[in-house]
């Protein structure tokens, strides 16, 4: 908030928004890095760091997506199931299996259909929320059930293997030795941060998230913004489903299991306000990394499952505390 920074031009206000959250959460992350680097020699190897990135990419993509509604004081509980059903739809359509037995379509079309499905779920919950004022908690919960049911129907509840290379390459290949899934994740992150920082839509998300009534009175199309954020999070969930196909090499009907809380936790861990109006993608990245590094480090150290849970609890608490203390 210094007057002197005021002239540093374009990048300046990304820093402002971040300033509050960004330099906080990073303390927890750095602490984790230091701890694990001291405790385990393989942790800091390039290979392992690339692994971590790879492991967090799916959660990361979903976290980016759900950052939009959270900034707008909405929530999306359907991301895990939308991710699942979209992935399964792309797979079954491309292979021509299960529900689409004999109706194989070209890969690009299958992908488009999957993304459109994700967008459709977001559109329905977004519309009901924005138009009728039903809390997005409820509308997206309904979508959670719907998407889950559709997933069962589409896949006939069995894994699909033998996916075309052109699909699995998106999330499962290497580009100059770097995992493609990580590139997808990071590109989406950058694009999303640019949208937030440099477009009207991004600005309006903060405005609506901060004070919906004021935003409405200042002439913002609040309905469109609220709906838009849920559509985006649906699309991002679908993209996560798409890259999961490449990461797993197959489409598994349970691939969304327990993928609801981690993305949302990453967003909050990254300093976003669950009640809207503040946060950003850089924070989300940090939150995603904290969760990923924590899991990876404990795996490397071979902690047993119960010890692992206890350690996760304690370290998480310390990390968030460090973040908050770091902000003061």
């Amino acid at each position, binding site marked *: 908030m210094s007057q002197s920074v005021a002239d540093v031009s374009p990048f300046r206000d990304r820093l402002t928004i971040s300033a509050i959250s960004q330099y906080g959460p990073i303390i927890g992350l750095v602490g984790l890095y230091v701890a694990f680097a001291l405790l*385990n020699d*393989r942790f800091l*190897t390039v*290979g*392992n760091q690339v*692994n971590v990135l*790879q*492991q967090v990419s*799916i959660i990361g993509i979903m976290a980016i997506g759900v950052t939009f509604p959270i900034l707008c004081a909405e929530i999306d509980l359907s991301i895990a199931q939308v991710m699942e059903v979209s992935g399964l739809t792309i797979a079954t359509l491309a292979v021509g299996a299960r529900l689409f037995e004999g109706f194989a379509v070209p890969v690009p079309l299958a992908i488009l259909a999957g993304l459109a499905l994700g967008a459709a779920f977001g559109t329905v919950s977004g519309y009901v929320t924005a138009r009728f004022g039903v809390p997005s908690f409820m509308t997206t919960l309904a979508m959670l059930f719907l998407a889950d049911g559709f997933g*069962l129907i589409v896949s*006939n*509840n*069995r*894994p*699909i*293997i*033998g996916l075309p290379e052109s699909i699995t390459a998106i999330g*499962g290949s290497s580009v100059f030795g770097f995992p493609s899934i990580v590139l997808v994740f990071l590109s989406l992150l950058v694009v999303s941060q640019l949208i937030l920082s440099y477009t009207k839509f991004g600005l309006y998300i903060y405005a609506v998230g901060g004070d919906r009534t004021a935003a409405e009175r200042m002439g913002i199309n609040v309905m469109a913004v609220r709906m838009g954020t849920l559509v985006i999070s649906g699309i991002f969930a679908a993209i996560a489903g798409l890259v*999961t196909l490449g*990461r*797993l*090499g*197959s489409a*598994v*009907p*349970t*691939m969304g*299991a*327990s*993928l609801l809380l981690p993305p949302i936790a990453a967003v909050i861990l990254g300093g976003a306000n669950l009640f809207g109006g503040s946060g950003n993608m850089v924070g989300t990245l940090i939150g995603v990394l904290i969760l990923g590094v924590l*899991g*990876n480090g404990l*795996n*490397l150290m*071979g902690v*047993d*499952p*119960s010890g*692992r*849970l206890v350690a996760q609890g304690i370290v998480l608490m310390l990390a968030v505390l460090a973040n908050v203390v770091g902000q003061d």
Partner: protein
Amino acid sequence: GGDGGDGGDGGDGTAGDGGTETTGDGGDGGTGTTEGTEEGTTGGGSTPTVALSVPSLEFTFFARMENAFNQAKSDGMISNESAFYDAGNSQSQQVSDVEAAISNEVDFLMISAITAEGVINAIRQANEAGIPVVAIDRNVAQGETVTYVASDNVQLGQRSTELCLSFMQESGDADTYNVVQLEGTPGASVTNERGEGFQQAVDDNDSLNRLASQTGEFSTQNALSVMEDFITQYGDEIDGVFCQNDLMALGAHQALNNADMSVPVTGIDGTEAWVQLFADNQYYGTIAQLPEEMVNTAIESGKAHLAGESVEDTIVIEGLEVTQDNASNYLSEYFG
């Protein structure tokens, strides 16, 4: 220390080893296949109305049970009002499912409990309502049951681990073989039992060494990440991977593949997708469970009980060892 729960019940049966092909239905179980008609069961008619409650259709295993159940329905083995319940992995939901079945006054109830202990009261209610209970796949800890039809998870764990050992021995000679285990959801009885089987195999075979064990929560994705971390930590030390289910084997395979490693991987369940992968890997395998047979055997046992016949307390459905050799047979048999 009352370690009452974990699957000790099924552990005894253990008839001949299961490398055979087990074509046809219900071959191995104790009871004969009383195909004939049933005289005057309740509910009017020879086809009883039954209910089957399973933990979660998220697992293909139970989806196959559902298919077998529906098949039995359309074959006229059970009435059309028969109901299938999916508890969505929720303990209390399963209790509710049983209660719904009881209020629907089914002729008998088949249940695969999420945990043996979680349904004690539900079973008691069924007993009180005079509804016979057949336990499938997972037993119940207390209460009256007609019989318990299941694979033996301890045995499955041991056999799969030993299958992995035999692969390791085939692929290279060594004094000891380091195996890593991917466990299921902590606290789940299957996890405990399969883990016990794994431990037995390690104890029984001097050449087998447990390198590491971590939970993959029965999920492909978690298994993939855990396996990646195992590879980072242990790298070439890993000689083989035992997964407590096939979905995790898919993840382990993917991680090994990405790391350009090729080591034996075995799972449990006989999941279609995993078996399909065998085609080009002689060191992959699984011990398949045969839910279709469990359901059919359970229905027959229930009908036999209604007909007044006596039914054995425990019927073990042997797991079927599936490797590259019999993969395509297996697939066409069960996934047509």
